[in-house]
């Protein structure tokens, strides 16, 4: 695992070689050397010896490592592509080796609870904005890195891997981070847009998962495209309201990372969130679904968090609230749907 320092340009770091991480590492490797971090030794071994991840071929210029220090020392720009459940832990493992000159871009769509020590969500009935951290806020809290960015948008890993045309958003408060992201990722098949509202872009990716579960449920009930259109549009309104309350701007929600991702996820039968909704509507119990899924669907955690947040602020978010009842309080999906159909939405669009 020796790293050749023959090129003047520093290699790019990728932390987490799940499907999305691998897809991004492949795109990065067409332009730069890439050092990839994986937690498990066998994954690192496979990368270095067979140039593949889970049997899928990857670019030859990707080198694997298990050593956070080595990665941080060799790279100035690092992409964190780990699931949100592990995000805080991984960031903490890297924190001792990160310095203010590092640029960190993450591609994780999830939220993190930030509660007083020793408390859990059950202890506090209501939570406020400061109890919720987006992933960039986790980075700012745990490390000394300040030049932080995020990747979001309709980026299904499989399609990226196949080299189909797609686009993404790099969001950061720092122009230099956006430019760096564009320089590293952009190619003929991959368009990269910039956005300075990082929190808005992160929230878009997070909140759309709620709607994805609902979309799966509609499909599971055997409902058609009219219902889906209704859901996406009302879901958008709810996303905008929740997102605004959490500090994102409207512009980001109606952009690629918002509407773009929402439409893709609500139509993708591959999405884990969609699958949860679908199977629920088919009559399965949440616990049984979770037991048979390899990874946790991000949206479930998001629904739980957002429900507590909505109660803490006194807002109304009918889709989220009803989905919560379906997931955790055994409300029948049909009843939830009935409730939503009766809910007095007065105006079509009132956020513009």
């Amino acid at each position, binding site marked *: 695992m020796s790293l050749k320092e023959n090129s003047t340009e520093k290699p790019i770091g990728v932390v987490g070689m799940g499907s999305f991480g691998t897809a991004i590492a492949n795109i990065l490797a067409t332009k730069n050397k890439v050092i990839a971090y994986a937690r498990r030794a066998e994954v690192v071994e496979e990368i270095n010896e067979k140039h593949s991840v889970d049997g899928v071929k990857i670019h030859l210029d990707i080198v694997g490592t298990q050593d956070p220090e080595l990665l941080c020392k060799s790279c*100035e720009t690092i992409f964190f592509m780990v699931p949100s459940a592990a995000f805080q832990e991984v960031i903490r493992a890297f*924190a*001792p080796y990160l*310095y*203010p*000159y590092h640029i960190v871009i993450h591609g994780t769509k999830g939220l993190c609870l930030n509660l007083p020590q020793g408390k859990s969500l059950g202890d506090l009935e209501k939570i406020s904005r400061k109890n919720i951290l987006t992933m960039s806020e986790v980075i700012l809290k745990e490390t*000394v890195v*300040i*030049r932080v960015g995020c990747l979001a948008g309709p980026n299904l890993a499989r399609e990226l891997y196949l080299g189909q045309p797609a686009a993404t958003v790099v969001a950061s*408060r*720092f*122009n*230099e981070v956006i430019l760096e992201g564009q320089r590293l990722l952009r190619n003929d098949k991959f368009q990269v847009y910039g956005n300075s509202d990082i929190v808005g872009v992160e929230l878009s990716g997070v909140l759309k998962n709620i709607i994805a579960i609902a979309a799966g449920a509609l499909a599971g009930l055997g409902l058609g495209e009219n219902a889906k259109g209704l859901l996406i549009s009302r879901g958008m309104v709810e996303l905008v309201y929740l997102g605004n309350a959490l500090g994102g701007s409207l512009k980001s929600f109606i952009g690629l990372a918002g509407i773009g991702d929402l439409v893709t996820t609500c139509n993708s039968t591959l999405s884990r969130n969609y699958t949860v909704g679908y199977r629920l509507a088919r009559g399965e119990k949440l616990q049984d679904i979770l037991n048979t899924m390899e990874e946790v669907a991000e949206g479930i955690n998001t629904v739980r968090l957002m429900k507590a947040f909505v109660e803490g602020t006194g807002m109304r978010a009918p889709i989220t609230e009803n989905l919560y009842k379906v997931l955790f309080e055994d409300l029948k999906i049909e009843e939830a749907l009935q409730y939503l159909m009766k809910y007095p939405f007065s105006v079509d669009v009132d956020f513009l």
Partner: protein
Amino acid sequence: MAETYIKHKYDPILPQKDEWPVVKLSKSRKEFVKKVAEASKKSVLQVTNNNIDLLKEELETTLYREKLRIKQNPWAVDPDDEQEFWRSVRSKLVQLSAEGNKNKSQKKKAYVEILDEITMRYAEEIASNFIHSHYKLTRRMVTYGFSRLLNAARVKGIKSIFSNQYTLQDKIQIVGETDQIRNLASKGTIVMVPTHFSNLDSILIGWIISVLGLPPFIYGAGLNLFNIGIFAYFMNALGAYKVDRRKKNLPYLETLKTYSSEAIQFGVHSLFFPGGTRSRSGMIEKKLKLGLLSTAVEAQRANFQKGVKDVAGKIFIVPVTINYHFVLEAPSLIKEHLSMTGQERYYKESDEFSTSYKISKFLVKFFTKGSDISVSIGKAMDVLGNYVDQDGQSLDKHGRIINTSDYFISNGEITIDAQREEEYTHHLGKRIVEEFHKINRVFSSHFVAFVAFQLIKKENKKMDLYSLLRLPEEDIEIPYGEFKSTCEMILQCILELEAEGKVQVAPHMRNDINAIINHGLENVGMYHAKRPLVKNESGNIVTQDLSLLYFYHNRLLGYELERKFN
């Protein structure tokens, strides 16, 4: 009771006045002003993208606004030759646009020359006139005069006027990281950022700096204050440079920022009131004016670029809060705050500090009656808001030593990136606000005002703030029992916050609850004609001026204590 108060004389860290950065600066004033003017010119050219049409437009706008200002809003301090100067600028501009025979580079040269004249004039106008003998005299006057007044009031008997039993430090208590600031001031450059509630603050801070044995700091003082003879003298003596808020044109703002940045790079300690003006609401500043703050970030990067990477080139940000029971200007400040409709607009600075007589009257009142002030000095930070150790090295949250220069590095080199620095300034501003809340000292007066106002608000839940404030005062009465029990509850919360290091608490808050309440009632806004809070005959709590109560109450906003009233 006074366990945490610091009361002793500090030796000056630089005994020789010739070593004081501010003296060095005033000795080379001429070259310095020239340097500032030159650098400002460059940055105006940069902002206008070296585009001659844009530059022309900026110059014309500047001329227009300046002429308007001279006509509509003249001040006593304005120099006599102003009209003449702008008239000549005008004729040059007119002449230039009329001349068709000049080529582009000639024209550009001519415009840049006009800009040069303007920035030179502004730099000269802004530059401070520090005169050491005046500084010494002022310092002696303040200390001597104040302690005479103080002793006359507190020590009984004919000889009181000559007694030295009480010194100014009994009245104004200094707490916090005094040793650190002294230590760092001898190593690098300090930028002190205090909260701002009263016009008295500048003099107070000047005195504090001298008590701590620090060489004088320079600071930007509103030009309006120079209208008053006695203030002008004080300000000059304390090293103030002039900030004219009437001038909002690009060349002026650039010159002002450049002046500050160059002075910091020169190694002169500076003082910014980062809230811009006095806090009109009585709240601790939440949004800071980032203009001057950005000059600290810029100066730090410039020092790194020059290769000064050791502590000598390091800039330390030191937050300071000033805590009063009583703010003289409170009635007019809160009125302005409430009438401001969110838009920026001109307000006349004709408040209680408008004449020397009123100031003297206030000072006599202040020193003869027992209203204490405490000043807390916060921990020093680098320009990114990281705490620093005794050697001035930055520490991250986990106590690891980091290089501040790393923040300005891109591809291994220190680079200039205006947008990046703007974000850093923003970040620094947020950190300063956080620190303000941590070092803010809760006084009994803030405490009782807070509880009383929140109780009144709770009683009238459905009203918005403005209708609430219009309630007739005579209709409001809080039963003492309810008041006391709420005070006990809130005090508990405040003490918990203190234990978590989120706020500080004055020693008089350690007494029993009745004593605290009485102390608070006695002190809250004690010299106002209408008292914000008093006890009536039946022992209940009433107010004579709800807006004033609101003002003093605001000091404790930002700790989420108001949630306890829902």
